Every structure is written in C-alpha cells, then in structure tokens.
C-alpha cells in the first residue's frame, strides 16, 4: 500500500535515524513510501501555546499536502495526536473542518500502524539488551495506544522488556512547558529517570522522540548510565 510518512521537524533535524528506520521497515514490508518534502511541522507548538491562528497557518498546509494520501504514518505520538485529534478542535467551525476529519481517519502513529493496521508484530529484529518502555502521553491517552509497542518489543530477539513503575506517567517534556516551567519539567524528568534506573535496564525505549529528547537531555547532563532509543531504531536492527 501507499504510505505517506510524516516526519516532524524535530525528528528531521535531530533524530533522522528514527525516520530512516521507519522508512526502511515499511519499505521492507513491501509498502511504497513517500515523504512530502514541503512539510516540516504539524503546528503543535503554536496550538499548545494558545496561538491557534498561527497554528492554523501551518496546519492548513498539512491538510493540503496530505489530502491525497491513502495512509499517513506519523513519526511521533505527539504530532500524531495533533493531526488525528487536535486538528478537529483547531478547525472546528471553519471551512477546513471536513478536511481535518478526513485526515484524522487516515492517520496512524507508527507502532499502531504496524500492529493494528498491518497486523505485523515480528519484524525479525535482533537487539540483545534489557530495556524499559516509556509511554508518551499523547500516543497513550489521545490515541489510546499502549499495547502495540510492547507487542513489537516482545518479538525482538534477545530483548528483555522490564516494565518500570509509572511507565505511563509523563516524563515532563510537554513542549513549550519544558522551557516555561523548567523546574517542574526537570523534577518530572528526574522522577521518570529514577523509575527507569530501578529496573536495571540499559535502555529507555519510547515511540516518541520528544519524550526521549527530554529524558536523554537530563541523563547526559546528570551522567546517568542508561541510554535512550526509539522503538523504530530497535525494530530496524536485524
């Protein structure tokens, strides 16, 4: 099938391996991938900050670029929630309301697309390590995705998944929140890291690079031994 991969700005700029892994995995499964080069952002930073007009300026472009796509796979649960859930609120009562609804029905977060849409859990991946999984809030609560990532990890050769306490509690990123209220955001990140340390895992895995950017940012400053890695990067290791 034809799949449009939506690579959000921060994945493009800072975590290209995540996008590359996703493209490789989907192509390996025999799908035809396209990545609209004109798209960079879903508009969430402006939306979350209350600047809905500015957010719409960006989001309208997303609606237009993706209107002919068959399936849209988003390389982040958070941006996925923006396209799938928040666009309907952003465009409610506007001429784009219908387009937003249509787009919503075509959008999938990466792990959910593999498991729920394609019915694939075993990608033949091999990653001999002890890992713990952090649920990104938007993927978990806006999109209702909890099991797919665990099912995928369960099939990775050599991988041991140890659940941390409060895996579904926010890591403290929250977009502009992290910079506006750094003391709260940092404290939340510290609590998250402490839960991850307790498991004795070597890696914190997530399906959202934004959470990992926050956690990794804290870890590398505080000298923690645990590393972070995106689910797609693990699944691409054969």
């Amino acid at each position, binding site marked *: 099938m034809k799949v449009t991969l939506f690579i959000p700005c921060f994945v493009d700029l800072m975590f290209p391996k995540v*996008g590359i892994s996703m493209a490789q995995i989907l192509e390996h499964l025999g799908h035809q991938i396209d990545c609209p080069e004109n798209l*960079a*952002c879903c508009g969430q930073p402006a939306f979350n900050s209350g600047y809905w007009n500015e957010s719409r300026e960006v989001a309208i472009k997303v609606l237009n670029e993706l209107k002919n796509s068959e399936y849209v796979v988003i390389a982040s649960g958070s941006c996925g929630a923006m396209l799938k859930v928040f666009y309907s609120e952003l465009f409610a009562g506007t001429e784009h309301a219908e387009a937003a609804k249509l787009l919503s029905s075509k959008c999938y977060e990466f792990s959910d697309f593999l498991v729920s849409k394609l019915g694939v859990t075993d990608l033949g991946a091999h990653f001999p390590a002890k890992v713990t999984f952090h649920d990104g809030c938007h993927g978990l609560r806006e999109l209702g995705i909890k099991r797919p990532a665990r099912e995928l990890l369960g099939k990775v050769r050599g991988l041991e998944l140890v659940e941390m306490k409060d895996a579904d509690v926010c890591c403290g990123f929250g977009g502009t929140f992290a*910079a506006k*209220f750094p003391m709260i955001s940092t404290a939340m990140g510290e609590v998250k890291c402490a839960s991850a340390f307790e498991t004795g895992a070597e890696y914190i895995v997530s399906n959202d690079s934004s959470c990992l950017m926050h956690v990794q940012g804290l870890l590398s400053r505080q000298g923690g031994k645990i590393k972070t890695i995106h689910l797609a990067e693990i699944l691409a290791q054969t």
Partner: protein
Amino acid sequence: MKAFAEEFKQQARRLTEDLRHRAIIQTALHKYEVVRDKSKAAFQDWQAARQAASETKWDAINHLDTYLLEFVEKIEARGTKVHWASTGQQAREIIFGIIREKKARSIIKSKAMTSEEIHLNDALEEAGFDVVESDLGEFIVQLKREAPYHIVFPAMHLTRGEIGELFARELGSVPSDNPEDLTMIARRVLRQKYITADIGLTGANFAVAETGMISITENEGNARLTAALPKTLISLLGIEKVLPSLEDLALFLPMLATAGTGQPLTCYNSLYGGPRQPGETDGPEEYHVVLLDNRRTELLADAEQRDALHCIRCGACLNVCPIFRNVGGHTYGTTYSGPIGSVITPHLRGLQDWKHLSYASSLCGACTEACPVKINLHHHLLQNRRNASTQKPSAHEKLAFKLFAFVMNRPAVYEFAKRAGRLAQKFHPLVRGTRLDPAYGWTKTRDLPPVAKQTFKEFWKTRKPG
C-alpha cells in the same frame, strides 16, 4: 497581573527542589493508587460508570434552573431556609446575619471547600468568633494556620511526627507520632467544641433535587456531630452540587469514595433534609442552606467549558497529576488546586491573573483519564491558553509564532533556519547553561541534541533523486 504567576514560579522552584516533600507526596499518592485500583475493580464496568455519571451531571448542569428550584422547594417544605448568594461577599453576609441573629459566639465546622473559597474562617476570626474545623486534616491545618494542601487530604504534606509536634505546641499535649494517640488528642478537644458550639456549619457533596436533601460524605463522623449537636445548622454549597434524583447517589457515593480516597465507600454517608421535625428527638432547631454562585453561572454560560461544573471535588485529578505531585497543593495559591483548579480558577478569579496555571501543564491528560465524571480537563487547559492569548497576546510570543509559521511553511526558509542552527550550535558551548543562553530554560538542567550531520530530509533527497 504578573504577581500570582511569579509567586507560583517561586514556590514551584522551592518545592521541586525539596526532595523530602517529593518523597512524602509520591509515597502517599502511590498508596492511594493501590487502594483506588482495588475499589475500581469492584465496579462491574468503571468506564461505563464514568459515562453514566457524566451523563447524569450533564443533565443536572444543563437543567440547573429546574433542578435547583426543585431542590429548594422540597427542602423548604420541611422548614429549611434557603439563601441565594451571588458572590462570596454575599455568602459571608448571609452567614454573619444568621450568627448575629442567633447571638452565637462559637461555630463548629465540618469540611467545606466553599468556605475556603469565600475565606469564611478568616472573616469569622477577624470578627472575634470562635471557629473550629472538626475534620481531622482541616483541624491540623487550621492549627498550623495554613490553607488545606489538598481538597480531600488537607494535611497530606505533614508527617505524623510533625503533627505530634504541632499538637504539643498548640494544644499542650504529650508529643507522639502514634496516629491513635494523635486522633485521641484531637477528639478530646473537638468533643468539647461540639457540645458548646452555637452553630454547626457544613459543606455538601451533593444536593438531591428530587427529595430536597443534602448528602455529606465523610470518614470521621465529625460532619454528623456538626450537623446534629448545635441548635442551628448552616450548609454552604456551590450551585453545581445538584443531582437530579436520590437514586443517583447509588452511583455517585461509591464513585466519589473510589476516586477520592480509594475506598469502596466512605465510613459515613448522611442525608440532611431539614431541621428537627415534630416528633423527632434530635437534629438542629433551625437549618439554613446557602447556595453559592460566585461566578459559577459565568462558567455555565460558557458552552465549551460548562462541563467543568460537573466536578464532584473528588481530587482524583490532583492525585494523578505529575505537576501537582511535584509542586504540591499550596504552590497553586488557589482554593482548588491541581488540574481542576487550573481549569476553573481563571473563570472564578480572572483569566489574565490565573492563566499561568493553564500553561503549567505538560498536557499529559492523566487528569482527564482519572476524572470520574469525564471532564476533558487538559483540553480545557488548551482552551484557557487560547482564550488568554486571544484576549491579550504577548507581543514577543505572537511574533515568535508568526515567525514559526513563516519558517515551517517555506522549505527554503526552513533550510536556511537549519543552516543557521548548525552554525549557531558551534558557538553554543560558549554560553550553554548560562543566563546568556537563549535556550537557558532548557539548557540549565538538560542538554540539547545537535542538528544532525545529515537530516532526514537530506537523507531522503540523496536516496530519491529528483
């Protein structure tokens, strides 16, 4: 006004660095989660129960005009005097009026967040009345001259040892950290107060329209004594407390207990329908009900956020909120803290003064997931943010997001910004983590990943020429 926001940030800074506070709150709320999950499991279908509760509250709030009048008619028919208070000031005047008419000196209170909302204790104490909180947690924070830390657990931030020291200092008791000893100390003080109090004052958990009754949920029996012993009883409640029928309590009482404290049901649940009736042997001679608006009707007029009035004040959203867990209840500086407080305080006390609470959220949605009546709390925080910036945009943020939209919508500009970013990060180590760093909010405690040598778009171009 920026003062409230600055105060919030300052307190948040202090509390997030306080690792002892963090440990106390995390431990207490983990214990809550364990018992809550057990009680939730006793429901045949918790999600269906939430849906039913949300529909009942929707009905109650969207027909508040009829249900309130029905409630008033029924409760007045049994000799209760109902008072309508548009503002906190009016509510205080009504209560003072009753107190003066009765020539009362002492008032015993059971837990009522509405009385915190209208700052009743301060006003009563200032006027020279003797006012005592009878809920153990409230009694403790009153002795400590503090506001309740949490709407359900007012003294959860204090250890047994600290409470023992407080009692020793304020009540002259023998220091102890044994919960039974501490409860006995409080009980000895409070029993005397019930007997001598002229007036009892309670809040309400629900107001049943069908039968004209007030429902009070508690664990200590203190509300029953407050309602039964003094000659005059006053109940102060928000107008949103209405439930249509008595049968609704069959769902709402266990639901409030489960979400609130994790209990399947609280120890005492009582209904009050009026003063002592002919032939009855106990109960107050006079019963006054004060219905408080205090800008709730303004929230009612807001179709988008009206469901915030569904709140049954269980505190579940506070308990699961990672922001609350790290900054604590007092930091908010509001009567209602946590997610529900951040949603409604801008409506009750002014959007521009209290908008910072709506921004102080990672929008994780744990609150919405926990809410037993399905208030879409974190989406309301987004709406508050939108309303605040539409009403009064910050000049630099507006410019920043205009620029953001400009960059994101133009591939050539995005490309330029990326190159500029790569260049800038060469010099970043010179200022990283210092006040001169434009990304200081982030880099003070965290590293920022660099722009990749080859971005995804660059990779994609090399792979798919043309």
